């Protein structure tokens, strides 16, 4: 009976899910060019929804993409993958800039480590530019992708922020 109801109401459920509450949030509160040049420092406010946290604890990796686009020179996409290891009960934070993931004993520590992020700017003399971040839904397991596309609780995306502010 549940299956039949699901079939009949699957499109409606998708629509309802898309409008449901308690979404997560991702914001870039400050962007600052490193005085030494070559990097931008982001103050990030990441709040994962219960759905994200549930997925993370079930071993689903969450990939945050940071799109860095200096006015002069090419743009880059830097990724940070959040993952939970059930074997070590540790949270891993793997950055595309680092070969070794950082390990945290708790989820709070890992999320706290994301408060301030330093990203490379490969263009020389990029005093001006834009940065934007989002949760990459394409990196989710296949079965979750379609649901995540319609589910606001899955979607995390910042507005475009400029540097200097």
């Amino acid at each position: 009976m549940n299956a039949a109801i699901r079939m009949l109401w699957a499109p409606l459920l998708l629509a309802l899910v898309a409008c449901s509450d308690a979404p997560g949030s991702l914001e870039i509160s400050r962007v600052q060019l490193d005085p030494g040049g070559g990097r931008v420092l982001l103050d990030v406010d990441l709040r994962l929804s219960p759905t994200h946290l549930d997925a993370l604890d079930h071993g689903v990796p969450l990939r945050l993409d940071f799109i860095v686009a200096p006015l002069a020179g090419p743009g880059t996409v830097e990724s940070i993958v959040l993952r939970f290891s059930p074997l070590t009960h540790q949270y891993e934070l793997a950055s595309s800039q680092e070969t070794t993931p950082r390990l945290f004993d708790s989820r709070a520590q890992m999320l706290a480590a994301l408060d301030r992020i330093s990203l490379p700017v490969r263009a020389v003399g990029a005093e001006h530019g834009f940065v934007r971040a989002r949760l990459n839904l394409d990196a989710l397991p296949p079965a979750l992708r379609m649901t995540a596309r319609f589910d606001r609780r899955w979607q995390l995306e910042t507005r475009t922020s400029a540097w200097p502010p």
Partner: protein
Amino acid sequence: MATLNTRWWRWLPVGALVALLLAAFLITIDAERENRLINTRGFQMLLILIGLALLGLFVRVGAQLWLLLQRYRRGEAGARLETRLSLLFAALALPPAFLVAAFALRFIDTSIDSWFRADVEAAQVAALTLGQLSLEREADALDRETRALTGELALLDPDGMQDYLDVLVDAEEARPMHASVYDLDGNLEALSFNTSALGTVNGPAPHELVELDAAERRMETTRREDVRVARLIERFTDDIGNEHVMQVLLPLDSELAEALATLERNVVDYRQLRFQRDALKTGFSLILGLITLIATFAALWFALVSAGRVVAPIVRLTAATREIAAGRQSLVPVTGRDEIAFLSSSFNRMSGDLADAKARQEQGRQQIERERQLLEAVLERLSAGVMAIEQGQIIIANQAAQSLLAGHAQEFRGLTLSDASLQESPAARFFARVSARDRDRTFEWREEIEIGGEAPRTLLIRALRLAAESGERLVLVFDDANVLAQASREAAWAEVARRLAHEIKNPLTPIQLAAERVKHRLSGKLAEPDREVVDRATQTIVQQVEALKRMVNDFGQYARPSRVSRERFAPVDLLDQVARLYEASAQCRIERDFKAQDVQIDGDRDRLRQVFVNLLTNAIEAGAELAPLRIALSSRREGDSLLVEVRDFGPGLPADFAQYAFEPYRSTKPKGSGLGLSLVKKVLEEHGGSVQAGNAEGGGARFLLRFVLTAS
């Protein structure tokens, strides 16, 4: 709705079904390929295509259902049967589709649920515990092996530290390891290793240096270059007070590391799958729902189309039956060789037979109608009155009957013999007698009856009782006995005239020649006064013979059988021409009031000229005593008749002369033969017309000629 029959509208369901099947196929294939399509623009287009196809199918099937409902409400032929068949087909097709869908859903549900078993999860937990214990044991071993190291290093300077680590890693019993010492700023002070499997090893991260307390040791298992290692970092202070951090990495046994990696990968996959359970069910339900919708719409559409096709020949037959019922021939197309085709073929044969029978009936009806018209024409032209009576009601009465029984304003046809208007008419005796005879049911009788009115007359009636469809019919034929007598007299006169002409005309010429010869022989031999007597006598003989010849010619003309040569001409023009001749010779004034002068008749121009000559001669002779001599001619059209009047201004006709004016040897003139007006009447009757004589108001005689106009 004509626009609904465009080609694209007809093929819309097929296109939509093909599109939906293709979409379902693509989604199924994509699911097997790990949903590579799902986050692309192509997938969005696919969703739009599915939506449009479903909408198209919905609109098409909905429109067809609506049209069927409208036809059903209007009670159109075949709509009820088509609706019933559509419902039947849909009832046959839809439940299996829904049943299969329900079972498939149930199967998907239970199948996905069966992936997640409690014993499997318990085994995974146990395996994880084992793995964690293994890691703890490795960490403990590292802890034990390295617990004394910082004590030794604390006594050495950086160079000594380097030497100590070299000895440590180069020892024969040493495990593969990577050992290094850093100051608190992360600067490398000593490094030694005996394995390259770990690649370039970085020192402790800055946050680790900050977070590590004095003399604190941290043990962990982690990965370096995909190699699982046990890692130790310990903060220590040397003997002169400088603080350092030692990091030691010991790769785990490769088999153990591989087993742990496999274990963790499987556990992660399993947990991810369990997390996606609802999403998987929703995805499969969507695909199945889509396929069910396709099947539903397809079943409905096929039901409607199939019902329409099955019913179409029956609708055509029904429409054709209605046409035939309305009296029109109708055929239906015969397609195929099934029972419907046989029925259509039989129907067409029946329709053809009906049409033939109807044509024959129509021919018969036309024949009867022609004969009826012929009979009516004959009856109308008969001088005898004809009347038919059935069950006391007059069903036939010709014009002559109406005239002979004059004095009744209403047409007899349709009246009953007991009608009050008949009982009060001048012909009441006639109808009373006929009614009595009808009641007596006399089969055949003959009787003379006198009727009253302005012109009393004696009717000679002959009656016969005939069988009819609705009983018996009494047929009466009656004539005016006076007219019959007059006709007999005319016939006798004609015979007399013919014999006179024959017997008298022959000796006249020898008499005339003999008289002239006598005059010729004796005139020269005789003296006066004998010669004068002979001349006068012979002259008298010749003149009287001439007079006799004219009389005989008149007799001959009157008695001659009529041979009318027909031609088309205007009689008023002919009268005008004759009048002009008299104007020139007779010193008379002829007044003309011609209307309808160009109306033409079919007639004998010479005989009608004789008619006009006779009438004008009479008029001139009648007014010869008066000066000036005056004649009035007029013409007018009245219905289907052309009326021509010739009037003089003489003394007029004597009293009671009018009714005998046209009988032979009736003349008001001392020297008249009495045949002029008889000839006028005869010629007019030959032309289907009539003539009436009478006195005009203001004096003088008037003759009214009536020509009946025919269509030709």
